[in-house]
């Protein structure tokens, strides 16, 4: 509530600041013979920005840390004999106090001590909110006063506004960097916690994957094994099948479209092929699980083969279909980039068009095509929904495409979906897998970029 009031008030003050700063400048400019440096609007914007921005920044920081500060104050109020209990019990208690204060459902009976704590919390919260409202408004007014004082014809308001705008643009472009750093740090820290429970060697080279840890100490056979090799091989098997499907189809269609097809055919077929890239992966998962897998099993039964209902072949084949447009459009780009002169030179010495394609164009476009394949592989190993819906969950070390295998991404989903605490080895394992996945895709992308740059022929 206070937040809404504060935002509206800041908006109103900023708008007023805009109009009155403009007026002040126009009046002042009318009185003197000095030509103002900046247009009146810039003076208005300068005041409005100075009024709203500092307050909003402080507000954002406050909202991020508010809950933590309140919690610390509450703990100091509760005293050491209550707060010395284990962390999760304390968390539960704090949650109940919070819920009681805002009138939500509780997990225990209300006793006077709890009631008192809740009232204390509510009082703290109210004080904090009132302080936020007052502080925010005070800061806004201070900004207004300071910038208002500076408005005069000789003041370079446009430079001020443009500095603020450029600063905002720089901050926005750092969000991408912050995201990368966030990914690396969050995944890395959780992985380190995982590796303090399970050794790196066991994870990377262990052949047994059964992440169910025992709930009680004395349970049998569920100590939890975190050997990720079956997941890596499963991922590789499915990726391999996908590439076996996608590479020929994608490459041949790219060759046909760029070298043989008439412009009409090209313009008609290309957008249709691109639909394949726009279909959500959950739809491919549906297709793999409900159409392709049963069909393959029926065919297998007809041939006397034993095909698992969640075979790697079904998931891999559908994943291959998903990455066809990747390979075809990236290879198409690489083929089109080969200069005309090479093509014409080859045709001029009497080669057929097929010979030109195979002996001249493909070698010249090879770095681009290899890069396309690497990007497609990176895409395939990071693909989640198809394998979650159509591949199995049992980790099995096998190279048989008719068998059920599981993958890194499928296991990550199984480990993290559902309610559980964030610090068991089971959930942390998902972060270790995510870290491995991130590193693998990053390496493939960097390698693809490197190949495309290093081996690209520089014509001209």
């Amino acid at each position: 509530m206070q937040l809404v009031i504060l935002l509206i008030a800041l908006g109103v003050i900023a708008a007023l600041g805009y109009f009155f700063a403009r007026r002040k400048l126009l009046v002042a400019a009318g009185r003197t013979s000095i030509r103002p440096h900046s247009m009146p609007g810039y003076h208005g914007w300068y005041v409005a920005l100075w009024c709203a921005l500092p307050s909003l920044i402080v507000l954002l920081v406050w909202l991020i840390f508010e809950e933590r500060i309140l919690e610390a104050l509450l703990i100091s109020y509760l005293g050491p004999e209550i707060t010395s209990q284990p962390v999760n019990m304390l968390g539960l208690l704090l949650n109940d106090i919070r819920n009681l204060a805002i009138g939500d459902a509780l997990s225990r009976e209300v006793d006077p001590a709890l009631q008192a704590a809740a009232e204390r919390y509510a009082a703290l919260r109210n004080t904090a909110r009132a302080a936020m409202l007052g502080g925010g408004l005070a800061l806004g007014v201070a900004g207004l006063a300071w910038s208002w004082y500076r408005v005069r014809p000789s003041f370079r308001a446009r430079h001020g506004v443009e500095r603020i705008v450029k600063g905002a643009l720089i901050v926005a472009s750092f969000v991408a960097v912050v995201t990368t750093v966030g990914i690396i740090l969050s995944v890395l820290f959780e992985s380190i916690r995982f590796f303090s429970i399970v050794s790196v060697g066991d994870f990377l080279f262990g052949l047994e994957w059964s992440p169910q840890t025992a709930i009680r100490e004395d349970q049998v056979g569920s100590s939890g094994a975190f050997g990720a090799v079956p997941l890596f091989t499963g991922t590789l098997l499915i990726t391999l099948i996908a590439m076996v499907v996608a590479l020929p189809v994608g490459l041949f269609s790219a060759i046909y479209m760029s070298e043989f097809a008439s412009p009409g055919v090209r313009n008609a077929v290309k957008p249709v092929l691109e639909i394949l890239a726009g279909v959500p992966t959950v739809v491919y998962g549906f297709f793999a699980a409900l159409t392709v897998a049963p069909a393959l099993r029926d065919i297998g039964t007809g041939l006397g083969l034993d095909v698992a209902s969640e075979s790697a072949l079904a998931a891999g084949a559908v994943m291959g279909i998903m990455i066809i447009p990747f390979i075809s459009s990236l290879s198409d780009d690489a083929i089109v980039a080969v200069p005309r002169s090479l093509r014409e030179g080859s045709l001029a010495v009497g080669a057929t068009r097929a010979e030109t394609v195979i002996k001249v164009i493909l070698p010249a476009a090879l770095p681009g095509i290899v890069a396309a394949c690497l990007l497609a592989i990176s895409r395939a190993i990071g693909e989640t929904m198809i394998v979650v819906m159509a591949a199995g969950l049992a980790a099995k070390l096998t190279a048989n495409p008719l068998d059920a295998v599981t993958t890194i991404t499928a296991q990550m989903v199984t480990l993290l979906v559902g309610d559980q605490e964030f610090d068991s080895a089971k959930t942390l394992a998902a972060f270790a897998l995510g870290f491995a996945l991130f590193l693998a895709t990053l390496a493939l992308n960097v390698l693809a970029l490197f190949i495309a740059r290093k081996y690209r022929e520089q014509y001209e």
Partner: protein
Amino acid sequence: MRVAGWQVSETSARRLKKRYRRERRLKAFGILAILIALGVLALLLGSVIERGHPAFVKTEIAFNLDISAELIKPDKLSKGKYGKVIRNALFNTFPKVKKRSERRELLALVSKGAHFQLRRMVRDDPRLIGTVQRVWLPASSDVDMLVKGSMPRDVPESERRLNDRQIAWLDALEKNGQLQTSFNSSFFTGSDSREPELAGIGGALAGSFWTLLITLILAFPLGVAAAIYLQEFAPKNRITDFIEVNINNLAAVPSIVFGLLGLVIFIQLFELPRSTAIVGGLTLMLMTLPTIIISTRAALSAVPPSIREAAYGVGASSVQVVSHHVLPLALPGIMTGTIIGMARALGETAPLLMIGMVAFIVDIPAAPFDSATALPVQIFLWADSPERGFVEKMSAAIIVLLAFLILMNALAVYLRRRFETRW
């Protein structure tokens, strides 16, 4: 020997023939590859539509419901015995059915959630109490599928979910005009349910709407601002190079990793509530940002330098050049890129699974802080359900999802065609 009007030797004629054959083979492979890709696409869409179209129709059974004041007390509407009203109506329609097991089979014709509809009706209009009303109630999923032909009648009784007796009852109902199929509007307005015949995508659509709204209002300004800086203002140095490499790599990070990031940052660190649209939107924002930045940069760089130089020439500052001239001219391209990024975010599932938007949620979310699920996640959830009735719901939800995606992409193509300037 003559080939194409030229006199050639026998060996070279043979060789030529071989070479042309190879050319034809390569061409055939190309056509075959394209046909395979197109065929698979057709198969994919065909299987979705074939399975999904029945879900847009629902089967209803009409009963004369005696809404007696004994069972539903006007002052205690929430405690009324609505199920009993429906049971009585069923037993009255088939008075000969007395055996307990047969009565249970009879009850299985009507949806288990039919009493919710009755309760809603009575709550909206309490004057109904004490009257007899003819009401169309939703049939159970098995009946629904049988009537729509998704489940065959002519197989042995042991392989059917409905036995001969139940089918006979249905035929009797149909003869009396008590059985009808109508447009399934509740599929679009309802939310998830344990009963396939009642489940709808309304909740998931609302969840997707809130999620995408958050994504759009955060990713669009941030992405455009970052792209403007990198393309128009950034000096060429190590830091900006680093940012560029970063953005390109982020665009290729698997979406599930963004889910991990959202889980750690927004849920564990900022303690935002789990499985809400706000967390989903923030996570998808981080994922969509690189797409928007890259397409915005492409649009900005397509504006010819002459425009910039002319603006500088009449005395504009660098910020004025960008905001008055370059940005408006690049806007169609930016919009196109943004719509395509949003379409991708709409179809994304994996990161939302990581941040817990997979709960079974009956209430339709009304704000970003409510628990929600999204359309693709709903499809995934139904795919996990064992009931056969969910297959058509899931396929119909896919049809709706694809329709939205086609709409968004068509809009992007339209914008590009309509406003794009060729320099």
